[in-house]
């Protein structure tokens, strides 16, 4: 497919400041820190029409399961204030077709790839990890633990430390020991640090935060739930403060844990906020539905935002908001302000 010329987001923009944008996710080196978010970029092919997908950090593919899956009935989506609710039900081709069709294309295209996997049982996660073992072009695996556990009344794995750890442990055991594993955490928990601790002990290299926030919309004309699946995942700018809070809390507890941040990022400044909170890389999701070239635009905006704040390296901005407060200076500033 040939790519479009994007009039408002020129590629190879010469006005970009000189900032080293490279980052690392537990040994997976990225030349730039912006990734797509799982479920918002399919397997990269559609977005490659709008920008060169090899120029962003990488593509996080839509969660793949062992078998083909139809997903849920429609309606699957509702627009909400500064966000959207979705209940797709992990529609997908299954791992075999994913490997031969989607991953093969990404490999040929030369994109850096994070494969997201999802399962209904712990065993399914293990089998998926085993299937990915022979694939050479995968930089990291993201484990979507926000799926209902069929063996436990549909309770979501991510919501309890024990089940979250079981899944990660199964994936770890069946994966190449050097493969970076990221557990994608749900914000719908009482203590996200406790869940992080559990998945790290179970072998996760790092965490992806946050998955969507569980929500619901009722259609006031039909006076019934709007989504066929009744509840859905809320995403978009509405949830960004929740993402910032979760990243912050995890970074406070784990100084060096690799974190992929996501949740409502639609500009470079939004991405910077997650980086300052502790994200080593940032996934762009729902913003793609508003602007299909959002990932490259946001990456360039982030580079400008870093440059204008005097950062020579992206890495230096990671967790920068956690730096100790220099009390004296800030008090002085305040005095100056008051006396004027």
């Amino acid at each position: 497919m040939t790519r479009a010329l994007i009039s408002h987001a020129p590629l190879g923009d010469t006005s970009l400041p000189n900032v080293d944008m490279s980052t690392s996710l537990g040994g997976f080196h990225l030349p730039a820190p912006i990734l797509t978010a799982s479920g918002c970029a399919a397997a990269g092919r559609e977005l490659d029409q709008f920008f060169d997908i090899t120029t962003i950090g990488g593509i996080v593919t839509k969660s793949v399961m062992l078998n083909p899956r139809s997903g849920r009935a429609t309606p699957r989506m509702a627009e909400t204030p500064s966000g959207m609710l979705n209940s797709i039900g992990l529609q997908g081709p299954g791992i075999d077709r994913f490997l031969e069709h989607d991953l093969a294309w990404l490999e040929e295209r030369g994109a850096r790839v994070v494969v997201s996997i999802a399962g209904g049982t712990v065993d399914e996660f293990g089998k998926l990890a085993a299937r990915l073992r022979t694939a050479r072009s995968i930089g990291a695996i993201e484990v979507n633990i926000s799926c209902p556990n069929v063996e436990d009344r549909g309770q979501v794995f991510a919501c309890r430390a024990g089940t979250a750890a079981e899944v990660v442990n199964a994936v770890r055991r069946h994966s190449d020991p050097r493969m970076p594993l990221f557990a994608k955490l749900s914000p719908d928990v009482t203590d996200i640090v406790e869940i992080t601790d559990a998945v790290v002990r179970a072998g996760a290299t790092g965490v992806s935060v946050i998955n969507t926030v569980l929500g619901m919309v009722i259609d006031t004309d039909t006076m019934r739930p709007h989504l066929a699946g009744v509840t859905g995942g809320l995403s978009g700018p509405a949830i960004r403060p929740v993402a910032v809070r979760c990243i912050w809390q995890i970074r406070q507890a784990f100084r060096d844990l690799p974190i992929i941040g996501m949740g409502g990022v639609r500009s470079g400044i939004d991405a910077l906020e997650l980086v300052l909170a502790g994200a080593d890389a940032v996934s762009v999701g729902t913003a793609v539905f508003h602007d299909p070239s959002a990932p490259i635009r946001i990456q360039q905006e982030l580079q400008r935002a870093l440059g204008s704040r005097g950062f020579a390296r992206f890495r230096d901005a990671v967790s920068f908001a956690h730096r100790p407060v220099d009390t004296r200076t800030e008090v002085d500033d305040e005095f100056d302000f008051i006396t004027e």
Partner: protein
Amino acid sequence: MVVQVKGQILDVRRAGSYYVMSLTAPGISENARPGHFVTLGIGGAETSMVLRRAFAIHQVQSRGVYGGTLDIVVSVHGKGTQWLVDRRRHDPIDIVGPLGRPFVLPKEAVSTVLVGGGYGSAPLFMLAEQLRERGCRVDVLLGAGTEEKLFGALELKRLASTLTITTDDGSLGHRGRVTDLLAGVMDSSDAAVVYACGPMAMLQRVAQIAASRQAYSQCAVEEAMACGIGVCMTCVLPVIGEDGVTRMLRSCTEGPVFRGDRVRWADIGTVPADTLGAPTGGGH
């Protein structure tokens, strides 16, 4: 080729219950075929409306003072479409297109019938012109709830051998539904293909009537979309493939035009049990 361009509003004008908007869309209008659609980013950069809005391409001019331009027909349903029709001349607008699979045109000069429900007639103008250029006979049926909700009757009259109008309230044309009269129109022109765009219930009936007369039907669906480019998986409906297997297909990239005999119209809004990968008992 699909492109994202920064276009401009050229004109917004009323047409009955609807608005016709002309936009500059360089790189899109040149490649647009009947049945293609565009999506527009709405509300500006800081908008609370995060999803694009999709519109069938109504007309295109590939050259002119403004380069490529296109027309869409907007029915105001909510805040997003209201924002759109409130735009003024020269306001910028982010456009992605041409999207989707267009109508398939017959190789031979056969008789065709075009059926439009409400502003579903919007993509039928370009189609009628191109069918005429191929020497096809074109008969048109337009239906809507009321006269104000009919779109483009005068212009279509110029392009069609016959134009039949129905309204639910009888305010113009025959009282009733377009599908009440479709069989008669098809029989009198010996139609080989029916093209339709409108509500699902209308499309379902059109597909049935076409099949009963051994004619092909090409139906453009309108499903709620989030992305319009094939990534979000919200706009799916059950469609039977060449292999006889039902899959949940995206109306944005595998449609919006489907063969009427392939869509499981009665099952839209559900996942039929025999769909590839359908949920099995007990699971999610």
